[in-house]
């Protein structure tokens, strides 16, 4: 009917497109460009902030490959999310007070 893209085009990886590509920097050994397809700054900013927490990333002299840095960041994020999930389970068990419908509007 029209040339509008499918509304799931923002979500589903098109045929032949890699979810993730990594290109090493031509000149600097410790640098590279990682491109993640069909993700937004929900994940992007999460990974960025986690990378900045790694002193080997912020130290320009450290011999540290970007792929290793990102792998570490993702692994640590996974650990944190698992922790949050555990805490949520415990917190839901402990949720004694039950709000009335739209209590905050009273």
């Amino acid at each position, binding site marked *: 009917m029209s040339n509008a893209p499918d*509304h*799931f085009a*923002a*979500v*589903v990886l098109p045929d032949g497109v*890699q*979810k*993730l*590509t*990594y290109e*090493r920097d031509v000149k600097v*050994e410790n640098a590279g460009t*990682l491109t*993640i397809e069909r*993700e*937004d*700054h*929900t*994940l992007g*900013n*999460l*990974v*960025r*902030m*986690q990378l900045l*927490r790694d002193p080997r990333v912020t130290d320009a002299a450290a011999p540290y490959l970007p*792929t*290793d840095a*990102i*792998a*570490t*960041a*993702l*692994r*640590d*994020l*996974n*650990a*944190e*999310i*698992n*922790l*949050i*999930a555990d*805490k*949520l389970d415990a*917190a*839901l068990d*402990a*949720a004694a*007070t*039950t*709000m*009335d*419908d*739209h*209590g*905050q*509007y*009273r």
Partner: protein
Amino acid sequence: MQMQYVRDRVQLDSVTLGRHDMRFILRNTDVSMANAIRRTMIAEVPTMAIDVVTIHENTSVLHDEYIAHRVGLIPLASGAADAYTYNRDCEECEDFCSRCSVGYSLTVHNSTEDDVPVTSKDLIPAADSAVAAAPPGDPVVPVHDSGDVLRDAVAAAAGTPGAGLLTSAADAAAKGILIVKLGKGQRLSFTAVAKKGIGKEHAKWSPVCTVAFRAEPPAVRFVLPRLNELLDETAKADLLSLALGVVAIDDNGNLYYDSPFLAGRSAITADAVRRAGELAAAAGGAESEIVEFCEHPERFEFEVETTGVLAPKEVLTRAIGVLRDKVTTVAAHLAQVSQEGVDDPPLL
């Protein structure tokens, strides 16, 4: 490698649950995690919503597209959404089947003299459809009462707290969600198909009305004791004019934080900071003495309100699951890419 950069002191507590609302506090983490959780709840938790509407007859005042759009926005109970596959991925069918979609039909003819409202109540699961495929006890059916109706009911019943609320909720549920009003002799008849999707595709798949979080401590704060010491009455009044809702003046002429600021509904503007700096400088102080900045908030007070398609705790639980899947998927792809990289020629 040990996990040395994990924020292992992360904490989630103070959960308060309502029927459509939830509040909780996330601690000892940073804005990126709080925001990722917020964004995932809004846009990436799968739910069911009507996506295809085939109009058979429409003599109402609204045109077909308008009605299709309104029907798409009706919230459908989505507890079973995870049991469905995405229609675009479904291998069982060319078109629609019980694994990937739920069918509905609606036929209303106004043979009365009055206007007849057509609502979500008139949406009937199609006989041959997939409602049977939904897990028992959790069918994908319209959620008839919306939060807004409840909120209005609360305001209306303000005189008698609590009273009338449940009846209003029941009333709202009994009335259903209005699609269109039919005049005398008008007809509306269509079939509709609900599919699984996420809020990123279209807002109708978003399970929440709002998710908001407030970072504590706020990014900018006044040092009130110092301000009170420095400023005279006129200067305080001057500052107050630029910081309404942030500060107020008490009976002793001292500035204190006003409730909207303490509740996180107002913030200190750049203008107010500048004015406070000028006033402090004029009184012999310095801007650096009277303003505090917080670069790394560590407490995030969340408020979630759902559309009714999922229980709020379910939205949060699923959002955390989605976020975890996202991270593990990317990590798996990265491992693959790094593995391939080993064979690349070394850098010169």
